[in-house]
Structure formats: C-alpha cells, structure tokens
C-alpha cells in the first residue's frame, strides 16, 4: 500500500495524468510484423506491467518507448508515441534527450566494467547535469540510496561494479538509470536473473520509485505483476489484447485469452 503522505489519491483507482501514449503502434522486423496497432496509455506515477507469452512483443513495445529499436537496422516503427503530448519520433526531439527522460533497466544486469561510482556517475556526466565533484558525489549517493544499495557499497565505491552479486548489480543498474533523473523508467524483466530475496527487494524498490517516476515493467511472473503494478496490459501475438487496472485484469478480465493466460492455460 502507498505509505507516502504526498500521494493523496490511490492511482490504482483514480485515473492519473497520462504520461506516455502509444497510438496505433506497429513494429516490423524486416518483413515480419511484431506488433499490430497497439494503443496504450501510460499513467504518471503508476507502475504499468506488460505481460504475455514469450515472443508476443512486450520487449519490442517497451523498446519503442525510448526508441531503443533505432539501433536495430531492420526494425521499423509505425504509429505515434507521445511523451507529455509530444511525439517522440519527431526529428526535433533528439534520442539522447529522449533517453535521458525515459530510462531503461535491462533483463540481465549490465553494469559497465568500471567502478561502482563511475557506473552511477556516467549518465550525469555525459548529460552535464552536475557542476563539480561534490554535486556529482551527492547525485551518486542519493541514486544509490534510492536504489537501496548505498549501505552495501558505501565503502567500496572504487571497486568494479561487475564484482557485485547479481541482485546488487541489478540495483546498481537501477541506480544508474535514476541518476539521470528520468521521468519514466522502463524495466524489461528486471528480476528474471534474481533469486526470490533479491526479487522482493527490487519489487519493494519499484513501489517506492513510483512516487517520483513513472514505471513500465515487463514481467513473466503473474504474481509480480499483481504485486507491483496498478495497471496491466496483456499482449498476445503482437497485439495488445487488454489493458486495465491490475486487480480487474487478474480477477475479472474481459477477454477470454487474458483469462486463459493468467490462469495458466497457455504461455
């Protein structure tokens, strides 16, 4: 439950402001179409979970939201994606700027082979967000703190980030992406490589981060989606079958396919 005082409405029930909006998004890998006409609203300060069987296009959709698909040569995106009412595919919006606003955490922890400090400081450095060492130190500390890692690594900021455990590495990656102070954080199966305890920590963390960020998370675990998200979208064969409040999707889905999936009849 939300414990933060400034959150006076429960976003699970009241419709918050729309942060990002996908309109008729279709994605092609070469000739093959991976996504068909996806319409999805992502609400501010809300955790939106994307679920669906493997290969249904969840990652593809997530990567559209900060144009990570640009780096794949054969990938072509159609339709419109809005961030605060502005089309992210307009030429005037630079991908560098977009990705500073819409950060990403990947399925496999992928810290840079640099020190813990440099991992977190990298984003602020390239975006010139801090002036001076002390300010950067502060950003690193608060980011690590928000990611729940500060206590564990405060004494060894100079050690390589790759030397941490898998769960710590994933929290380091989360710290690294919140150091840039994005508005939206995209997470692609962030817990798939982690044990239940590390998973629980990250889920807790996601719930806390919701206060300040808008979060979209892809997950294969129904329980995880139910635990951390307020809104859930169900993908199937490249289509967004259904989207709604998480409790409604899990208790009373509109579509038969959703029903089948969450009850484990396929996927």
């Amino acid at each position, binding site marked *: 439950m939300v414990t933060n005082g400034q959150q006076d409405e429960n976003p699970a029930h009241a419709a918050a402001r729309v942060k990002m909006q996908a309109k008729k998004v279709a994605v092609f890998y070469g000739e093959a179409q991976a996504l068909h006409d996806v319409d999805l609203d992502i609400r501010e300060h809300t955790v939106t979970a994307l679920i669906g069987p493997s290969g249904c296009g969840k990652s593809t959709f997530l990567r559209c939201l900060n144009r990570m698909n640009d780096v794949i040569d054969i990938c072509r995106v159609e339709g419109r994606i809005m961030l605060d009412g502005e089309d992210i595919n307009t030429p005037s919006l630079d991908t560098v700027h977009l*990705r500073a606003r819409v950060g*990403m955490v990947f399925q496999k922890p*992928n810290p840079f082979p640099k020190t813990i400090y440099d991992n977190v400081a*990298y984003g602020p450095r390239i975006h010139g967000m801090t002036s001076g060492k002390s300010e950067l130190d502060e950003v690193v500390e608060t980011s690590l703190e928000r990611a729940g890692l500060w206590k564990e690594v405060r004494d060894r900021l100079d050690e390589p980030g790759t030397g941490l455990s898998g769960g710590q590495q994933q929290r380091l990656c989360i710290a690294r992406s919140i150091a840039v102070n994005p508005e939206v954080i995209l997470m692609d199966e962030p817990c798939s490589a982690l044990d239940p305890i590390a998973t629980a920590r990250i889920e807790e963390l996601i719930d806390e981060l919701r206060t300040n960020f808008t979060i979209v998370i892809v997950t294969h675990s129904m329980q995880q989606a139910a635990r951390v998200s307020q809104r859930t979208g169900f993908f199937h064969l490249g289509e967004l079958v259904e989207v709604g409040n998480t409790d409604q999707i899990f208790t009373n889905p509109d579509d038969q396919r959703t029903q089948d999936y969450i009850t484990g009849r396929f996927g």
Partner: protein
Amino acid sequence: MSGEPDYAARLRRRHRSEMRFRFYGLLSIALAGVILVVLIGSIVLKGYSAFWQTHVRLDFAISAEQVDIDNLRETNWGGLVKATLRDMAPGVTGRRDKRKLYQFVSPNAGYDLRDAIAADPGLLGTEFSLWVKASDDIDMLTKGHLDRTLPESDRRVSDLELGWYDRFVGEGRIELRFNLDFFTTADSREPEEAGIQGALMGSFLTLLVTLALSFPVGVMAAVYLEEFAPKNRWTDIIEANINNLAAVPSIVFGLLGLAVVISLFGVPRSAPLAGGIVLALMTLPTIIIASRAALKAVPPSIREAATGLGASPHQVVMHHVLPLAMPGILTGTIIGLAQALGESAPLLMIGMVAFIVDTPTGFTDPATVLPVQIYIWADSPERAFVEKTSAAIMVLLAFLACMNATAVWLRRKFERRW
C-alpha cells in the same frame, strides 16, 4: 540389455582415448619446444661470437710534426699504422708480403688512431698503445673458424701471417674484446667493421611509419565498419576485399609501393618512409580484421546500457566499446607489426636492399632493415659474415621480444583501468 560389463568397457575405452588425446597434445608441445630450442640454440651458438672481436695492440710514437693538429683529415693515418706494423714485423720486404702485413689489421685502423689523437692530443710526442680491430681472417683464426692444418694453398691465412700471428700472441698483442662497435656502426664491406645499428635504426624508423599510418587508419576503419556502417552490399564487398588483401603475397605490396609510392608520389627510394608506407598497406588488413573481432567481442549489453542512458553512438564507442576492445586491438596491431618487422620481400622491391654505410637519422635517409641486412650478410662470401648473420638474427629476435613485451604491458595497463 547387455548391462553393466558393456558399460564399464565403454567407460574404460573413453578414459583410454582421453589419455591418448592428452598424450598427443603433450607430444606436440614437446616437439614444438625442442624445435624452438634447437633453432634458438643454433643461432646463439653460431652468433654469440660476433659480439666479440679480435683486437691487435699497436704501439705508436708519433711526434707533433707528423700531425697537423688543426687539420686532422690531412694526415696520412693509414701510413702511420703501416709504419708501426712494419716495425712490429721487421724483415718484411716484398710488396705482396707488405700488403699482407697491412691487411693484418682492419683498414679502418687509421681512423681509430685519428680519433684517439683527436680525443687526446697530449698523446703526441709520447709512446702509447692502441687496440685496433684485426682483419676478419685473423678474427676467424682467433675464434677457431680457420683450420691451421690445411695445406697453405687452401687456407685464407698464409704461413707468413700465421707466423706473425703466433708472435703477436706471444707478445700479448692479440685479444678478444667486446665488440661494442657492432651496435654503433652500420654496414661495411669489411666484416670486422660491419655493425647492426644502421639496420636496427632503419627497422625502427620504418616500423614507426607503419604504426603511425596503419594503427589509426586500421582502428578507424574497423570502428566504422563494425559500429556505424549500414549492412549492405557495399560493406559486404569491402569486407570481402579486406579479407582478400590479408592474403595477398607481400611482394605485391612491394610492387605497388614501387609504382605508386615512389614513382607517383616521389617518396625517395630506399627510405624508411617508403618502406613504412608499403608495410602499412600490408599490415592494415591484419589490424582491421583483429580490431573488428575485438569490437565484436564487446558484449552488446554494454552498448545497450550506454545507449539506454542517452549516450550518443559516438560516446558509446569512445567511452565503452573502444576501451573494452583495446587489448584485442593492441594484440592484433603487434601481430601485424611483428609481421612487418620480419618482412623483406616488399622492401627489396623499393630499394631497401642497398648497401648503406651510414646509420639513417631521418625518415627520408636511405636505409635498410634487419631482415634485409640478414639477407645481405647471409649472401656475403666472407666467413666472418656467418656469425654476423646469426648475431643479426638475435638482434631481430630481441627486437621482437621487446615489441611483444610492450604489447603485454600495454594490455595490462588497459585492463587495469577497469
């Protein structure tokens, strides 16, 4: 089901084949080791004596009148050496015998005398001795490469010379001394005067040009092809051609260098600049292929992480991919340079095989390189060049070892940054 005995037999068979496999591996390593030891051993055995040189002590008593101290060039230094030799072996009269006597020491002995006087004019008017190099035949005699028991007509050293030699040895005038000159002089027609410095410097300058050209060009080409170039027919063609270039015989690059670098662009013949350009062309494919492999080996997750944080493609490459690939790139570069260091065929085409007595000091001076020097010496008839050849090979191997050590050091340095 035949059951357990069958299974046990199969297991034993598997163990045996594993043992055999290991044994073959050990055998190959031992074979390679033996060959290496024999190779290096024979080179060292043949060549180590080149670092020593037979010297003859000459006693001089030169008055100030015999020398124009302000104009040392005008003095007949050779004549002074000859006079001393005549004193040392009295009773030599015939012209041919005299010439033999004069040839007992190196023809450059006069210059050694001049340098000694120039360094210390106080020697004039006093009696002093000077150790000068013996001629190559005498040197071979000292080192035991001449068979004294052969009949005189089959020997390079006549009975008369042997007589002088034995007397001088008795007088303590003959000594084997460390041949520092081998490292400080360039090639010479006289084996006792020939040194490796010219070729060493030539190789160094040539490789410097090669490195300066091929490393940046190779790395940039690899980075562009691997990170930025669209994957289409053109890049496929370029890639295929780079692979083809790596297989082109090196002499072809020599012909190209002759036609383009020298004839078209007017780079001086025999110069390290020309050699360096030709070797750079030869090395480029190696560096590009190695660099691309190193870039490919950088995990895509690192690229994604940086891109996801908003790094531009340029920043992704400069901050993450290139530093991570650097150890591999350096290894490839050193392999390419080591190849270039040992290359002689293309350099023969552009005139780096010339006989050059001055150590090159710049990129446009005529020069030769170590492998070509080895070839020149190996091709010379004098017995004394045999040991010089092996010594030059040792210097080449030492050069290579230094290069590899640098590569290892650089690799460590780059790896420690993370």
